Each structure stands twice: as structure tokens, then as C-alpha cells.
């Protein structure tokens, strides 16, 4: 009797430990590569921390400097926000249009799907080299094609007004991932819904507005959040395509932080910059989520609840 009980106890103890053994790799990685560095970077933001020599505690001076004494901070922030404001809606619109196109039941549509997605698997390094050459104002093929159409192309990468546009065009090249997310969602809408609407006399545009859009609002929400976060952190393209120039017109926030850390070696200041962006991203994400109850379609919520209930049963 006693041994049996003991065995049972041992068994439940093992059962209790087992799940932690499975998730142990992530717990270690989380502490060593995420939580530790995150906390340390917050501490560093309160120090004057040169790359060599003694770090000095300076309280909130880095933040005060950032907000009151560094015009580049505001410039970089506003350029980045401007980029996000152009890039996010444009990217969403293009992704949605492409997704609608590739759901059309016409011959060869899969080939187009592959073509539209292809640039999304290409490295930012290759993207910037290829587009840099397309945009080249002397030998670039883009301005040549424009000249054939009777348009005089701008000095894309040399003109401060146009440099940000080149970044938008080059980064929109990778819209394929978002397109696929919309695509699978739109394809999942049952055909009967459209048929019923057609019987009621709704045309294609009416069907799109009353059926497609409301059904995919949760996906739109997901895409808005991920692309806002991506836009605010854009770095590879500005490093390689424009280097932040001309005249710092593409000196994005990511580049600002990167240069403060690895070029000017102000590690404490760069940490303060990075934390500021982290908080902005958190607030924006929360804001978008909060607003979602107003425009994300209710039925998705019903579905979700059902799913969760199902999940609960399995437990």
C-alpha cells in the first residue's frame, strides 16, 4: 500500500517536471538572449557608456538629451513616421489588390502568384543592389523607360525629395508575404456567400464591400500591426541603398540608433533611443488593438470563441 502510494507520488512529480523539460530550451534562451539583454539595455540607458573606458551613471540625462538637445532625434523620428504613413497603407492596398487578382479563376494564375511572391524570398542586400541599379540616374533603366513615355525621371537617389520614394518602391517589392496572407483568407470565404449575394442582385463591387472586406478585417488588423512594426524598424535598405542620405533625407530611426551605437560608440544613448522606439511600438500596437473592436468584424470574434471552447474541451 505504502509503496504504491509512493510510486504514484513519484509518477505525478515526474509528470509535473516533464513539461518544463520540454520547454526548457526556450526558457534558457529567453533569459540569456532576450530578458537579460532587455533589462541590461534599460540599465545602460541610464549610463554614459562609451565603448572603451568607465561607464558613468547619469540618470535620465540620455533621455533629456534625446528630447531637448538632439534635433536629429526628431528628424529621424519624423522621417520614419512619414515612411510608415506612406508605406503601410500602400503596401496593404497593393497586397489586397494582388490577393484579389490571384483568386480569379483564370488560366495560369498560379504562375502569377509565384511571380508576385518571388521578391519576398530575396535578401535585402540583393534588393538594394538590384533597385539601386534600376534607379541609377545616369545609367538606370527606369529613367530610360520613363523617357520613352515622355516623362523626365527624377534623380531618384540623389534628390532628397525622391530618396524616400525609392525606399518605398524597393521595400514594397516584398509585398508577397502579405499578399499570401490575404489570399488564403479570401479563398477561405465560402462560395455560397457570394452566390447568395448574387441572387439578391449584388454586383462584384457590392459583394467585395459587404462580404470580402468584413470577413477579412482580422487579417487586415494582423497585417497593419506587422507592417507598422516592420516600417518603424526598416534598416537594411537605408544602410545599403541610400546610406541615410542624401542630406540625411532617409536617416531613418533604425539607422539613427545603429550609428549612435556602432559609429559614435554612445552605447548608453543608443540604448535610450532604442527603448523609446520599443515603447512607441508597444503603444501603437495597443492602440491598434483597442481600435480594432470598432472595425474588426464581429463574426470573427464569435468564431474565435467557438474555437476556444473547443480548445477548452480538449483539456
Amino acid at each position, binding site marked *: 500500500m505504502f509503496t504504491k502510494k509512493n510510486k504514484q507520488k513519484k509518477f505525478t512529480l515526474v509528470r509535473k517536471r516533464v513539461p518544463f523539460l520540454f520547454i526548457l530550451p526556450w526558457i534558457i534562451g529567453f533569459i540569456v538572449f532576450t530578458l537579460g539583454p532587455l533589462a*541590461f539595455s534599460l540599465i545602460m540607458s541610464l549610463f554614459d557608456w562609451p565603448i572603451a573606458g568607465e561607464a558613468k551613471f547619469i540618470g535620465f540625462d540620455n533621455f533629456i538629451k534625446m528630447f531637448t538637445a538632439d534635433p536629429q532625434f526628431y528628424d529621424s523620428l519624423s522621417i520614419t513616421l512619414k515612411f510608415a504613413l506612406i508605406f503601410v497603407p500602400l503596401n496593404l492596398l497593393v497586397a489586397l489588390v494582388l490577393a484579389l487578382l490571384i483568386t480569379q479563376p483564370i488560366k495560369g*494564375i498560379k504562375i502569377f502568384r509565384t511571380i508576385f511572391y518571388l521578391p519576398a*524570398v530575396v535578401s535585402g*542586400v540583393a534588393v538594394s543592389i*538590384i533597385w539601386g541599379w534600376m534607379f541609377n540616374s545616369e545609367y538606370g533603366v527606369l529613367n530610360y523607360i520613363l523617357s520613352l513615355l515622355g516623362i523626365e525621371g527624377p534623380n531618384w537617389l540623389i534628390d532628397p525629395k525622391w530618396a524616400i520614394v525609392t525606399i518605398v518602391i524597393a521595400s514594397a517589392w516584398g509585398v508577397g508575404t502579405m499578399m499570401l496572407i490575404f489570399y488564403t483568407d479570401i479563398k477561405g470565404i465560402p462560395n455560397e456567400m457570394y452566390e447568395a449575394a448574387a441572387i439578391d442582385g449584388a454586383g462584384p463591387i457590392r459583394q467585395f464591400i459587404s462580404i470580402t472586406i468584413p470577413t477579412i478585417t482580422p487579417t487586415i488588423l494582423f497585417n497593419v500591426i506587422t507592417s507598422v512594426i516592420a516600417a518603424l524598424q526598416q*534598416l537594411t535598405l537605408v544602410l545599403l541603398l541610400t546610406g541615410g542620405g542624401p542630406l540625411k533625407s532617409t536617416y531613418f530611426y533604425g539607422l539613427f540608433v545603429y550609428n549612435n*551605437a556602432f559609429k559614435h560608440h554612445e552605447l548608453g544613448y543608443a540604448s535610450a533611443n532604442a527603448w523609446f522606439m520599443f515603447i512607441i*511600438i508597444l503603444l501603437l500596437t495597443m492602440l491598434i488593438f483597442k481600435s480594432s473592436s470598432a472595425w474588426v468584424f464581429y463574426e470573427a470574434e464569435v468564431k474565435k470563441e467557438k474555437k476556444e471552447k473547443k480548445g477548452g474541451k480538449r483539456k
Partner: protein
Amino acid sequence: MKMTRKYKFIMYSILVLFSLYFLFPFIWALITALKSEMEVFSFPPKFIPDIPLFSNFMDAWNSQPFGTYFKNSMIVTVLTTIGQLISCSLVAYGFARYEFKYKNLLFMLLLSTMMIPWDVTMIPLYMEFNMFGWINTLKPLIVPAFFGSAYNIFLLRQFLMNIPKDLENAARIDGANEFQIFYKIFLPIMKAPLTLIAVLNIILVWNDYLGPLIYLNDQSKYTMALGLASFQGVHELQIIPIMAMTLVMIIPPVIVFAFAQKYIVEGISGSIK
């Protein structure tokens, strides 16, 4: 629905127009890579080189240690993929198939790490790897993969949640231990989502530029992305070899994508549901 000719014509026109934007830069890169020096800098630009110089590719490959870069990229890509497959399947299994204390809290933590901007942890991570003596080695690019990544774990967990509980209970009655259940029963049925995360990881790691940029100093340690970027920085006017190597660099992810297109198209939708 009836398809009129006019409708079809308009559809194909729009599709072709968009295709130009997505495809033409690749074609132009290939045309450039095959041109002679004279042709590249002629105006108006030539759309078909007189004699396509395929030797440009060999010349470009040999002008820099691209063989070494390629090998380094391969090492990092293969090892991180192995690391992700092992760690993510274990962790996702733990989260999906067991009940334990603080499970929901831990899972929320896991999801929230996806929102942390890269530059917040960039500096401390650099210092940490420096302390380990890992700077200018491939280790900072490889080792973290063995501790999982939030997005991959999330993907696998979503898949595992949909499998009925009877499966492991039956195996337990038969006397299998917990690890055997994972290894012998669950791992084989995870083939599709594991393929997806392998493909996503290969594309991500092969293309990564910022990681190598920060952690590697010596040319002998460079990956393709970093080697190509530094090549471009130094030889801005040598557009022919740069284009040739750019095309070489994008071949591996394109091949992987071609073979795994099905998994990507299906998998991406699963990730948000």
C-alpha cells in the same frame, strides 16, 4: 459566372503589368550580369547584349573569396535550421500537449517577445557575445537558434493543438515514456509544419545582413549577404560582377521556395488563425 473576353483581356493586362514590377528587376539584373563593360555604360541602355558573357559569373566568383562566403552561409543556414527544428518542436510540444503551472503566462511572454525591436537587445547581445569570446565567429549567428524562436514555436503549437488527446493516452497505456511519445508519435506527424519552419528559417538566415554585419569582422568569416554588401561598397563601378553575384546569392532561397511553395502558401494562413 460567365467570363467575357473583355474581362479576361483586362485581367491579363493588369496581371502582366504587375508582373513587370515584380519580375523586370530580376531580368534587368540578369541582362546586366551578361553584358560587356562597354555595353553596361552605354546610353540608351541595351536590352539584349551582343554576346551574352557567361564567363562574367566565373570572373565575379573568383574576384573575391565568394567560395568562402558561400560556405559560411551554408554552415550558418544548415546549423540554425537543425537548431530550430529540434528546439521549436520540443518547446511547442511542451506548450501544446501538457498542462502546467504558469503555462499561459509563459506563453504570453513567448508571444510578446515577437514585438521587441531588434535594436533594443542589439547592444547587450553584442557585449554578451563579446564576453563569451564569440565576436568574429559564426557562433552568435548559430547558437541562439538552438533555443527556439517565438514565431516558429507558435506555428508548431497551433498545429499540435489540433491533434486529439487520445493519441498520447493510448501510448501511455502501452507503457511508452513521455519522450518516446514525442519522438515516435508526434515528430512524424509534424512533418508538414516542420518543413514550413525549415523553409522559413533557411530564407531568413541565408538573407540576414544585420547579424553578420555586427558580429563578423574578418573577410574569412563573411557570409554571402555581408560579402556581397561589402563588395558593392568597395567596387561601386563594377556593376557586372556585383549583379552576377547578386543573382548567385538569390538562387538558393529561390530553389528552396520552388520546392516548398505548397507548404508556404498553406502554412502562412495557419499562422494567423
